[in-house]
């Protein structure tokens, strides 16, 4: 080290130490750049971390580290007897952030809530097309069909009238697309002729106020002094240092250039755990990796054939090789951390001999099939090609020849939806809102055939249960129906459920109060740094 570098580094360290004593600044080595700062326009977790969770707040929120929905900007809500009207009672005195580009003159009211949703719902709203108008989550959660009207009862009360009872509606309100924006700020942007700035300079009522973004490099935030949760956030400054490469994130964490990093390489986790000064938190992810048969094509239209193939699959080997231990065998289509998970369901045990006999009993001999391997890496499937190879070898043992096919990701998603698709598709799902409906109805309902339901499976007894569960008001009643639905799913086996992955979050020892979020969000509201 040269003298100059030494002196500079020492001076920096001294300055940082002095600054740290007065100000708590946490550096988070994020995995990528946000696509923008309007959480309603995007669907990626990276954008939700940088915009939805840091800057904005919602009427209801997920309790940190869980999928339990708790009051947020609304201190309470009522549901009408017919389950079609949700009335939210807003907390008085909610402050929007004061920044270099906006100073609010009033507290949050029902007008802000109505604006936040109408800009997505109403094509005539001046902000509907301001930044391209692709409100994908709002559309994907069927909000345009579901919301009949949004009415201001008084300044602090707002009523959502729905076209049908929809129990997951409350969980949807905790999602990032439901972030509440300041109408006053939006009006200012509109007057200035720059409505697209809503996507570039975000302003909300969340824990941190946006300071600056240098594209692909750094995002800076500072504490929102008027945040509605007493004593929070604990940090004075939050910095996202955008670091796309996982190995480099690890080096930065080791060197103390960042305090927290997401998405470590599975191969690095063991080394991180033994590293001085680094703690690795872990939790089961809210996801499932599966292989979907095309249940409309023989012989996969026969549940016994599907179950036989499931029995031929050595899932433990897949967990060991593909997930390198960072996963667990999936037996249900929803993850174990989700309410209504039916632990009583028994998985089809790995038994190649029995599988072979079962196939022969069903008259299936010399079966050739395709196994589709995703071209991308996902938490629910870190290496689809390797997984497909293991499945191919397992199927070979029971006399089934499997050919592995793959396509470019867009093509893969498109072709795998096809009802006439040839072969079984490896895919998966990460939950959006912690509601079982988000897995069971999205991925296995009759409506999803030819779309997100890659098994093309429409089975009325299952369908009746999940549709009824949507309309019941209490979680306990809904859970019973979902538990039954999982039993039917296992009997019918439209998928081979393969794995739920674990999520690892390495961080420096001085980071206190961080909780891994099951929805994959990275939230720093309750985090502090130990001096």
């Amino acid at each position, binding site marked *: 080290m040269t003298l100059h570098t030494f002196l500079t580094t020492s001076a920096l360290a001294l300055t940082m130490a002095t600054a740290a004593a007065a100000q708590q600044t946490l550096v988070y080595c994020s995995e990528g750049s946000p696509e*923008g700062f309007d959480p309603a326009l995007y669907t990626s977790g990276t954008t939700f971390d940088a915009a939805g969770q840091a800057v904005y707040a919602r009427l209801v929120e997920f309790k940190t580290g869980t999928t339990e929905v708790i009051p947020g900007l609304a201190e309470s809500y009522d549901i009408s007897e017919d389950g079609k009207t949700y009335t939210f009672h807003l907390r008085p005195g909610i402050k929007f952030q004061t920044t270099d580009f906006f100073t609010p003159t009033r507290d949050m009211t029902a007008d802000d809530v109505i604006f936040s949703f109408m800009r997505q719902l109403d094509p005539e709203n001046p902000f509907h097309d301001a930044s391209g108008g692709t409100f994908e989550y709002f559309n994907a959660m069927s909000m345009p069909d579901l919301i009949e009207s949004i009415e201001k009862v008084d300044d602090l009360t707002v009523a959502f009238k729905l076209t049908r009872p929809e129990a997951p509606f409350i969980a949807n309100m905790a999602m990032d697309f439901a972030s509440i924006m300041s109408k006053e700020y939006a009006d200012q942007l509109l007057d200035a002729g720059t409505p697209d700035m809503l996507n570039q300079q975000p302003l909300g009522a969340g824990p941190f106020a946006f300071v600056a973004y240098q594209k692909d490099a750094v995002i800076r935030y500072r504490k929102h002094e008027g945040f509605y949760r007493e004593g929070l956030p604990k940090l004075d400054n939050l910095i996202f240092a955008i670091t796309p490469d996982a190995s480099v994130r690890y080096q930065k964490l080791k060197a103390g250039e960042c305090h927290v990093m997401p998405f470590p390489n599975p191969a690095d986790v063991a080394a991180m755990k033994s590293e001085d000064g680094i703690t690795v938190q872990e939790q089961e992810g809210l996801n499932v990796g599966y292989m979907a048969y095309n249940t409309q094509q023989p012989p996969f239209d026969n549940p016994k054939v599907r179950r036989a193939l499931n029995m031929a699959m050595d899932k433990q080997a897949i967990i060991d090789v593909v997930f390198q231990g960072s996963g667990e065998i999936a037996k249900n289509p929803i993850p174990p951390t989700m309410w209504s998970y039916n632990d009583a369901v028994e998985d089809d045990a790995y038994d190649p001999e029995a599988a072979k006999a079962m196939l022969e009993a069903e008259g299936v001999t010399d079966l050739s099939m395709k196994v589709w391997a995703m071209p991308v890496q996902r938490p629910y499937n870190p290496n689809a090609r390797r997984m497909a190879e293991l499945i191919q070898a397992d199927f070979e043992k029971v006399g089934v020849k499997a050919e592995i096919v793959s396509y470019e990701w867009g093509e893969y998603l498109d072709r795998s939806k096809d009802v006439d698709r040839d072969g079984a598709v490896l895919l998966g799902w990460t939950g959006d809102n912690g509601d079982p409906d988000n897995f069971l109805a999205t991925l296995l309902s009759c409506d999803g055939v030819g779309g997100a339901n890659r098994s093309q499976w429409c089975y009325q007894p299952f369908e009746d249960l999940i549709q009824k569960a949507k309309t019941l008001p209490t979680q306990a009643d809904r859970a019973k129906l979902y538990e039954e639905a999982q039993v039917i799913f296992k009997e019918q086996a439209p998928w081979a459920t393969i794995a739920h992955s674990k999520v690892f979050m390495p961080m420096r020892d001085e980071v206190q109060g961080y909780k891994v979020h099951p929805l994959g969000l990275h939230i720093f509201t309750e985090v502090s740094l130990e001096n």
Partner: protein
Amino acid sequence: MLKFFLARLLTFVPTFIGVTLISFAFIRVLPGDPIIVMAGERGLSEARYQELREQFGFDQPLIVQFWDYLTGILHGNLGMSYVTKKPVWDEFFALFPATVELSLCAIVIAICLGIPAGVIAAVNRGKFFDRALMSTALVGYSMPIFWWALLLIIVFSGNLGWTPVSGRIDLLYYFPDTTGFMLIDSLLSGQKGAFASAVDHLILPSIVLATIPLAVIARQTRSAMLEVLGEDYIRTARAKGLAPIRVSGLHALRNALIPVVTVIGLSVGVLLAGAILTETIFSWPGIGKWMVDSIYRRDYPVVQGGLLLIAGMVMIVNLIVDLLYGVINPKIRKR
């Protein structure tokens, strides 16, 4: 000289049209629909898909889409990114200075080390220095950038702690972008230590990016020098009793520079290709990473506009190289 310049400038027109067409066709030849990629596993309804197709203009015949693109370019409009919803032009120029800064440092390192290495190797042909330098150059040329960068980070940042791991400046410093060039902005900011921090952050990425051009320049200089050193006028210069350093450093090198300058010009393309990996590893916010991300996302306007602008930059650099030939060798500009 002006005639020479204008003649070279005229060749820009067909190249520009060709690049426009290729950049438009290139991204569309790749399989993968941007709307499907955008929707991901979640998917979207047929009605919504058609709505978005219409919104992005994909329902129009290709020729109409190309015409819209072409007229947009002629009006200075490269379109809006499907992803960030920001003008391609703004995004490019927000990121371009970072790539230029890194590439310039890399090329300076490559030239300052590559040419002397080539000259030393040529003068010592067949001796230890020649073999050592050329073997090192071959290793440098063959080194996978990704691996090389990680190795340097682990050794110099992780183990020795001499350099920062990644980024352009320590996060402690915060000042608005004035020029986009961190070295200049850090000086303008007046913040103590900012410039030194910016320099520290440039060291490893510049070395990594310079490695391949350095090897190429060294090898090219050596072979050009060997050719020139066998010429009659060099023998004459030696016979006149000129000092060896004057013979090889002045008489031989100047004449050997033409192919070296060509290689330096061509290295700009190599630098941009290398920048893609270097920028990703060192979290360097430049256009290399921006282009790769946009290809994965099938962000047509960014890929098209980015390719066009990068091609434009390469063309300008090659024009400068052509003009330099004239400066180095007056015979060329008279042709």
